[in-house]
């Protein structure tokens, strides 16, 4: 009991300094949670707990719980520079973050689980050779998390959960070599870096406290995972065939590391008036680990590429509401405020994220005793922002890339919940 109290206390201390969101994080790890503003650290609802709070899995009533789904992410970014009249618009393919969660109640106090989800990803495609092409033409970043889980009820009121995470990811990134170099045909010189099947390990741990029947508090922490790409392929093309060129055409190896930052969540849920549930989550993402996208090209003659990012830790505030409208139909709505980890002067067009407001909604429809259909929609609204990236250099001189950005994103997701 003393131990539990200590944990409880420690969690709140941590909460004061916690972080999560923005960057290349895509919050779509469960249609039920997403419909409620992606809250869920203190909501016992479905196997989605495998992501939001494994400690809660032990509270699920059924023996076997499965939740799976996929979300279509349609994001748009527009950029313009009023001084020069230049403009560009991304043509992003639809992102498809997915999740699969399963939990199995072994005993009254022990539940095991397995989850697979894709919390980080980014696909941004600008028109080739656009005004910011020396920074990025396109980027495709994916990471899949696979995690075995244990959920343990320590008392009537308190449970813990967690497990190791196996992460596999890859990145494909294309930009022009600089602002002006072209080959003999006038085509812009280009470099594409590609690394796939980069793996590493992480972990997550959580607890849930249920002081009364209609009130829960949850805490979840997922560790950072640094994906270290070794001997990836960097392909230079459209470089003039000249010994005077800064690089030569062809493929060289490179090393780079890309962090998937740690994320902590604390939150609560409260059921009221029989059919209503309110949930609040606070996330903090420890983005400060993302300091510099350093690309270390293997050959001595190819200068390494330093791309300072200098992200800061950032918070997200999430609010969700659930209403059991009919026996078979549950309605949900939510809102969240997502703070950007990008600091002033570091606004790189490959992750053009400023603060955003998320508006969510959705429902579950119980198709049968065992099957429910879960759906959610999200509208992510970014304020128009004048921003610059000041860390691109030419001849040792900083050449800021400035402009106005306006983004939005729509997420539409479908999932199923199966109970046995």
């Amino acid at each position, binding site marked *: 009991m003393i131990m539990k109290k200590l944990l409880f206390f420690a969690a709140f201390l941590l909460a004061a300094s916690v972080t999560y969101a923005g960057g290349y994080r895509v919050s779509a790890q469960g249609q039920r949670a997403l419909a409620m503003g992606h809250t869920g650290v203190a909501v016992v609802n479905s196997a989605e707990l495998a992501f939001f709070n494994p400690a809660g899995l032990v509270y699920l009533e059924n023996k076997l719980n499965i939740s799976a789904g996929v979300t279509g992410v349609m994001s748009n970014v527009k950029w313009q520079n009023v001084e020069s009249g230049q*403009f560009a618009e991304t043509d992003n393919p639809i992102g498809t973050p997915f999740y699969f969660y399963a939990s199995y109640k072994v005993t009254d106090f022990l539940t095991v689980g397995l989850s697979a989800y894709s919390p980080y990803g980014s696909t941004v495609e600008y028109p080739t050779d656009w005004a910011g092409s020396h920074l990025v033409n396109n980027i495709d970043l994916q990471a899949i998390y696979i995690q075995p889980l244990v959920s343990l009820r320590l008392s009537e009121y308190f449970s813990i959960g967690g497990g190791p995470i196996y992460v596999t990811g890859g990145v494909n990134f294309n930009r022009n070599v600089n602002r002006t170099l072209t080959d*003999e045909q006038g085509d812009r010189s280009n470099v594409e870096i590609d690394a796939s099947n980069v793996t590493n390990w992480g972990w997550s741990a959580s607890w849930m406290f249920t002081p009364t029947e209609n009130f829960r508090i949850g805490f979840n922490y997922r560790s950072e995972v640094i994906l270290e790409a070794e001997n990836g392929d960097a392909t230079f093309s459209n470089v003039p065939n000249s010994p005077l060129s800064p690089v030569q055409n062809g493929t060289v190896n490179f090393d780079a590391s890309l962090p998937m930052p740690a994320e902590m969540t604390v939150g609560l849920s409260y059921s009221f008036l029989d059919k209503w549930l309110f949930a609040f989550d606070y996330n903090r993402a420890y983005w400060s680990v993302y300091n510099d996208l350093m690309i270390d090209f293997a050959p001595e003659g190819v200068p390494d590429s330093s791309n300072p990012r200098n992200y800061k830790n950032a918070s997200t505030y999430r609010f969700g509401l659930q209403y059991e409208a009919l026996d078979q139909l549950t309605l949900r709505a939510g809102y969240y405020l997502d703070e950007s980890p990008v600091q002033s002067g570091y606004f790189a067009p490959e992750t053009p994220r400023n603060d955003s407001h998320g508006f969510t909604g959705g429902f579950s429809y119980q198709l049968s005793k065992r099957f429910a259909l879960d759906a959610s929609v999200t509208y992510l609204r970014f304020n128009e922002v004048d921003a610059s990236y000041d860390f691109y250099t*030419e001849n040792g001189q900083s050449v800021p890339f400035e402009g106005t950005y306006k983004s939005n994103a729509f997420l539409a997701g479908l999932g199923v919940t199966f109970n046995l």
Partner: protein
Amino acid sequence: MRNYIKYAAVLALGLVACEPEFDESVEDDKVYDQGSADFSNYVAVGNSLTAGYADNALYVSGQKNSYPNILAQQFERVGGGDFTQPLMNDNLGGLLLQGDQIAGNRLTLSVVNGAPAPTPISGTPTTEISNTLTGSFNNMGVPGAKSYHLMAPGYGNVAGVPTGQSNPYFVRFRSSADATVLGDAVAQNPTFFSLWIGNNDVLGYASSGGVGVSQQGNLDPATYGSNDITDTNVFASVYSQEVDALLASASAGVVLNIPNVTSTPYFNTVPVNAIPLDADTTAFLNSQFAAYNTQVLPGLVQFGILSPEEAAMREVVFQQGQNYVTLVDEELTDISQILQAPPFSLDAQTAMMLGQIRQANDSDLIPLPSSSFLGTLVNDDPNLVNGVSVPLGDEHVLTASEQEEVATATAAFNQIIESIAADKGLAFVDANAILDRVATSGISFDGGSITGEFATGGAFSLDGIHLTPRGYAFIANEIIKSINTTYNATIPSVNIGDYSGDPSLGD
């Protein structure tokens, strides 16, 4: 279940259609103002600088960075329409006439004998000038055109190319064999025009080292040679006719004056004291010229043929280290015949060599292409070194008096241009002052500065006289500035750092 999926699909489609919108988008007409000008049909008239000529050739990627094309992109923000250019067939830049190459490929910086040097890019050009393009072209820049050429019928007649009567670049896109450049421009009913012409009216003379003559007083340009300086009255007359013709449909336009060609790297890269000599060679050369310096020249002064000043100027003395080149100066008294007669009685070859020889001084300029000629041997004879024991011909040196002629003509033409611009209320760009500023103090931009330094300065291409994309972008910005002031417009300028100022590279 099916209904739900349908519902979700419809919802998703609806959401995709809802793109983010700026409060004030540069794509709308609200942000920028065209002022009192109408940019819907812009036609550019001029010479190589208007065509986008660079690196001693016209080629596709150079044309895409021509200042009219850059301007047209900015004009799109204030109602500008499509802008067509008579694009070349390739990025090599040479020209073919009936399959024979009549113009060289563009220059690229290549490594020759371990050092970077401008070299024509290899390959066979594919632009056959007799394949005349169809349609009209907003960019009516014709490389090589002088002021009066724009009004010369038949300037685009292929039959005149071999004799130099017509212009191979205009042959490619003229509307008919007897069309004029100006006529084809006017026929497009421009609402806005730019005119940058007159450079070649002095450039031909200057770049040839003053081989031609000033035609001041000769009012018939049909009799001019290609390296002559145009008569001022002829220039004034054709220039004002051209502006009037363009103003028939256009309500606004911009004119640019003529930069002083002697401030380009074409004339400021090769040093006049380019000849390094060691002690032995110096002694040998001085012994060769000893009799000439100590006997011939004083003798000619004594006979009253040369003034003491001219004799002093004509002394040829070498020293260990860097030496001024020797040259033939047509301004000097020709003594080749006198030297063959007694008392000198020199052989004809020596007398001819000494006829108008002097050593260069700091006021002489050597054109860029002569750098590859200096120090070469005549007939592989180590005693016959060009620029040393063999004086450079007139075409290799622009002397002070020739420079004076160029400057006088340029100033006269520029006065005409500026007064016509003022008279007609046209936007005026002092390209002369602007390029002088590039050459003297440099122009800073977000990635450094551009100067008039050859190859590395960022303003001039590898031919030393035409501009780089960055140089043309800079001109475009100056034009925009002038248009905005004259017509109360707010056209956005380009970021010249987005345009290349580096020499193009090749193998």
